[in-house]
């Protein structure tokens, strides 16, 4: 039983760590703010959720403490992380940050120009 529990804990925390590292590499390697938002809004979410889940399992299965706060933390992260990514890229676009030169199409440019004119 403890073997299964420990395997579960190690697996979840390791997954979390891997995806946190992926976030860091993605933020360093991607060319502009919008592609970086991809890495920061997705991988960071799963990374922190994995680590929190591992901590939750450790305290539950090894120490016998069922921590509701960790579960609430996971829920809040689930709700807020995509909205954070959305707001960051929206603010960057509206303040005029140019996308990378690899970008092939931009449907949003006219809309923003139109709303600036009004």
């Amino acid at each position, binding site marked *: 039983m403890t073997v299964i529990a420990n395997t579960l804990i190690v697996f979840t925390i390791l997954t979390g760590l891997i995806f946190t590292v992926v976030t860091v590499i993605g933020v360093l390697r991607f060319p502009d703010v919008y592609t970086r938002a991809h890495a920061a*809004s997705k991988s960071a979410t799963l990374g922190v959720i994995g680590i929190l889940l591992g901590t939750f399992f450790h305290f539950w299965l090894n120490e016998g403490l069922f921590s509701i706060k960790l579960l609430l933390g996971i829920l809040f992260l689930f709700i807020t992380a995509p909205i954070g990514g959305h707001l960051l890229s929206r603010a960057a676009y509206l303040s005029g940050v140019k996308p990378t030169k690899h970008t092939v199409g*931009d*449907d*949003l440019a006219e809309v923003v120009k139109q709303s600036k004119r009004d």
Partner: protein
Amino acid sequence: MAFQILLNFFIALVWMFLSSSLTVTSFVVGYLIGFILLLMMRRFFTVKLYTRRLWAAIKLTLLFIKELIMSNLSVLFLVIRPKLAIQPRIFALPTDLKHDWEITLLSSLITLTPGTVVMYVSDDQKVLYVHAIDAGDVEEAVHSIKNTFEKAIREVSRP
């Protein structure tokens, strides 16, 4: 829907008082009896029984978790590839959803989908502007968003 849940709750409460045992067990028994009563009386409600929407919400949650894991794997493969061959594109995605919470939920789901981040919601709330990390997948992404997410959300919001 909220009315049905509240009714079921009150039937359970009445059952607790009738059997004069204020325990969790009698509450659960009363809740089950109340649910059977609601099931028998369901033609008097104007909307469908609440379990259908509950089930749809559970399915939506599972979809959320699945998409999160898939999108993380796609970012992982994108990041560890030695040569960064990406073609970002911002495309417009028309949506049929009406309520504010539905659009918020849809944009959260899109942000957690592989390769897409919502950047802007038009002022009339009919078009979402989505940043895709690879232009080749755009058609497929639009298709999957239309068929999977909007359908799942409409399943939950349908009265």
